[in-house]
């Protein structure tokens, strides 16, 4: 192992430059995890600056028996970028140029390390936007967004990352480069682009990304609605949709997170509300007016206490700042948090939220809820201090119960964070052996030797063409079944 690593290091130094590859213990430790609770171990870390350098990283890793773990800004919450032993971590943060903005073609080409917010800011003078806007948009990269098929508040009306990625220049596991998708609206062949988006770096590394850009809406209205019960807030969400309005965003925050955020940002959020909704409608001025009226009427029917309409752009920005700083505000409550990401049918929101409160109460844990209510995408956030003995175990036990609760309500394991290491062993909760075998076929079609981000997404035992394989149907606790070389 040591000799293999030394030889790989030498070749990598030649390929990407000695400053751009590291075996320094501090660097390795820094890149041994993402923003999840999972830790692994990196053998080497490289910082390529061009497509050709990524190709060299992939080839050198293959020649020396190292796996490749692609990584953007490391804001992932499911352990997708956590390296499991003998891995070369390929970090794309130094590829952060916006290459082209072509309004006439309604597209832009970016390198994978470009930050989501930087792209949005660069497009605004052209009158365009890039729709997906994860809450971490100040720090997450477009490459990482592609990897997790990231969402964000505005996906309700505009759709997820995959809807906004036209083409990818992908470094494939064998070190070749292919353009998947097209600058044109349709491409030839199977939608390999669509497979790579959301594949969490298991099918290749997106070295160049062509995104669809959308014209900025002429008019936007943001409203803050506050309620004395969670049920009334959830019923308002359903009523808005039933009235034929799909707002640009519908975000919900419960009492505890609203108070934490207000302390932190001073956005004027009502600290005595049981739940608040942040609703944004956009479009033509007359349709914004029509939809705002409908939203307000739905809220009044469901006993809204106050309706605050952002009077200007500064107030609108402040209302959003509260929502987007929510996770930072949690530090006031406890030093660590574990954030869930399940999606349930919109009509089950109230019932599932009640279940989440019950589960966390049973385990004596604090839970804060700030989430994409319009999409049914829950983000229960368990705040805790892992230095208190027994706490981590309680968090994991509660987490498993929350996942099962969401699945039983007809939901899925992840809406926008991905499966990574965190949820791979929950996959049999939502898929049969045949379903998982088909997914393994997708993976092996790209990467027959499982060189790219091994041990992620699919549970051990899921194999292409192996649909008769008997696997235990009981899901082991995540902590017991983590692959060798990673821990929590």
């Amino acid at each position, binding site marked *: 192992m040591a000799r293999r690593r030394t030889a790989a290091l030498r070749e990598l130094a030649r390929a990407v430059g000695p400053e751009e590859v590291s075996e320094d213990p501090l660097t390795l430790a820094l890149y041994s995890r993402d923003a999840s609770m999972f830790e692994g171990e990196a053998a080497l870390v490289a910082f390529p600056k061009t497509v050709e350098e990524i190709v060299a990283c992939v080839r050198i890793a293959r020649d020396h028996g190292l796996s490749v773990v692609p990584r953007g800004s490391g804001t992932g919450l499911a352990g997708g970028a956590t390296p499991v032993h003998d891995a070369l971590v390929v970090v794309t943060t130094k590829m952060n140029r916006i290459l082209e903005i072509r309004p006439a073609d309604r*597209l832009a080409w970016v390198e994978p390390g470009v930050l989501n917010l930087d792209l949005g800011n660069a497009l605004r003078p052209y009158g365009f936007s890039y729709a997906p806007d994860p809450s971490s948009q100040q720090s997450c990269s477009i490459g990482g967004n592609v990897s997790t098929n990231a969402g964000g508040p505005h996906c309700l009306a505009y759709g*997820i990352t995959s809807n906004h990625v036209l083409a990818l220049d992908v470094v494939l596991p064998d070190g070749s480069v292919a353009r998947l998708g097209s600058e044109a609206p349709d491409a*030839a062949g*199977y939608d390999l682009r669509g497979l790579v988006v959301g594949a969490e770096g298991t099918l290749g590394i997106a070295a160049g990304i062509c995104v669809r850009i959308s014209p900025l809406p002429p008019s936007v209205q943001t409203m803050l609605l506050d309620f004395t019960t969670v049920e009334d807030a959830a019923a308002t969400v359903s009523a808005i949709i039933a009235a034929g309005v799909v707002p640009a965003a519908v975000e919900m925050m419960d009492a505890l997170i609203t108070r934490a955020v207000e302390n932190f940002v001073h956005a004027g959020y009502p600290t005595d509300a049981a739940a608040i909704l942040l609703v944004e409608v956009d479009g033509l001025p*007359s349709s914004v007016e029509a939809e705002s009226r409908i939203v307000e009427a739905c809220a009044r029917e469901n006993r809204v206490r106050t309706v605050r309409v952002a009077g200007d752009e500064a107030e609108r920005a402040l209302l959003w700042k509260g929502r987007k700083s929510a996770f930072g505000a949690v530090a006031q409550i406890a030093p660590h948090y574990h954030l869930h990401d399940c999606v349930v*049918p919109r009509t089950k929101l109230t019932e599932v939220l009640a279940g989440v409160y019950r589960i966390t109460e049973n385990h004596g844990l604090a839970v804060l809820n700030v989430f994409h209510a319009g999409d049914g995408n829950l983000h229960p956030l368990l705040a805790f201090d892992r230095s208190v003995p027994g706490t981590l175990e309680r968090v994991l036990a509660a987490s498993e119960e929350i996942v099962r609760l969401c699945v039983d309500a007809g939901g899925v394991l*992840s809406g926008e964070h991905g499966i990574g290491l965190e949820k791979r062993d929950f996959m049999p909760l939502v898929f049969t052996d045949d379903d998982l075998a088909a997914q393994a076929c997708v993976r092996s079609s790209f990467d027959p030797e499982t060189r790219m981000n091994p041990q992620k*997404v699919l549970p051990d035992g899921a194999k292409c063409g192996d649909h008769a394989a008997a696997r235990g149907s009981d899901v082991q606790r995540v902590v017991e079944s983590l692959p060798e070389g990673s821990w929590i």
Partner: protein
Amino acid sequence: MDLIEPITKAQVVAEIADASADGRRLLPVGGRTHLDRGEPIEVDAELSTTKLDRLVSYEPAEMIAVVDAGMRFGELSETLARAGQEWAVDASPQATVGGVIASGTSSPRRLRVGHVRDTVLEVQLVTGDARIVRGGGRTVKNVTGYDLPRLLAGSLGTLGVIVQVALKLRPRPAMRRTVVLDGSIDDAARALATIPLPAAVLARPDRVEVLLEGWPEAVEEQTARARAAATIRETIDDGPFPVKAPWNDRPVVAEASVPAGRISDLLPSAGDAYGALIGVGTVWAGLRSADGELSDLRGRAAELGGIAPVIRGPGGLGAPPPAMEIQRRLKAAFDPSGVLAPGRFWGGI
């Protein structure tokens, strides 16, 4: 040719297993409205999904419908319209839901509603090795595993027979109006720049058709903007879009796809019966034959970074795509004995 019409998913499984055992090749068919797409092939039987046509579940508050793949688009549209919703693909009423997805046929309103593949949340298919496989999920957001729904969209029946899907719906617009303007391609580009958020802008050789939809006050606002910027020939409320499709009167119709800003560079090779979706990059070109005209169009589309498969008449798809090895491995994994429409797909897959 034999026509097999299973009435259950289990029968689909059995028919595919039998065909595989006997070395027979099957062509999955639905409403037969997209059969010209793909390379010409010979098969031993057609496997029709049209008797798998149940509405499995529909909860308007979720804006999701789960339907068997053989349901006709017309029937589904009527059901959804009663709840004020739509599946925004604008297919022929005879087309089946599965056929629309397998052929990857997007709506002329694509500027507004996106690609058909973005509306398929969950797919259940029977693979060529007779397995029932489900991918995706019944929620509007989902990154639980690999995106099989997008893989199946546009796969022309070559990976599996789609038997059931969950569709993402949208509210049916309260008002729909087509504004026909004088002019051609340059005027169409101007219309896109001056009329905010149209659902579609279609350039024809002698006119521009702009589709507006939404709340009545918004449509009136857009109409006023159109009137200020161009000469309106007529306005049609609740009519078909495109108003007319003269390219469909020609023996061969190609659906060219180029970067949106390059449409005007393609049009000299698109003949005199075309419709071009401005801001999208789709051009329907009616051709007199699949010979020289088609190869000119394909050659020009390729130079511009696009493609031009035929969607009606002879002519097939065109040159093979990149990453053929991965595409072949996918076919081999999902349909190992080559039962399902072998040779129909890009690159002879």
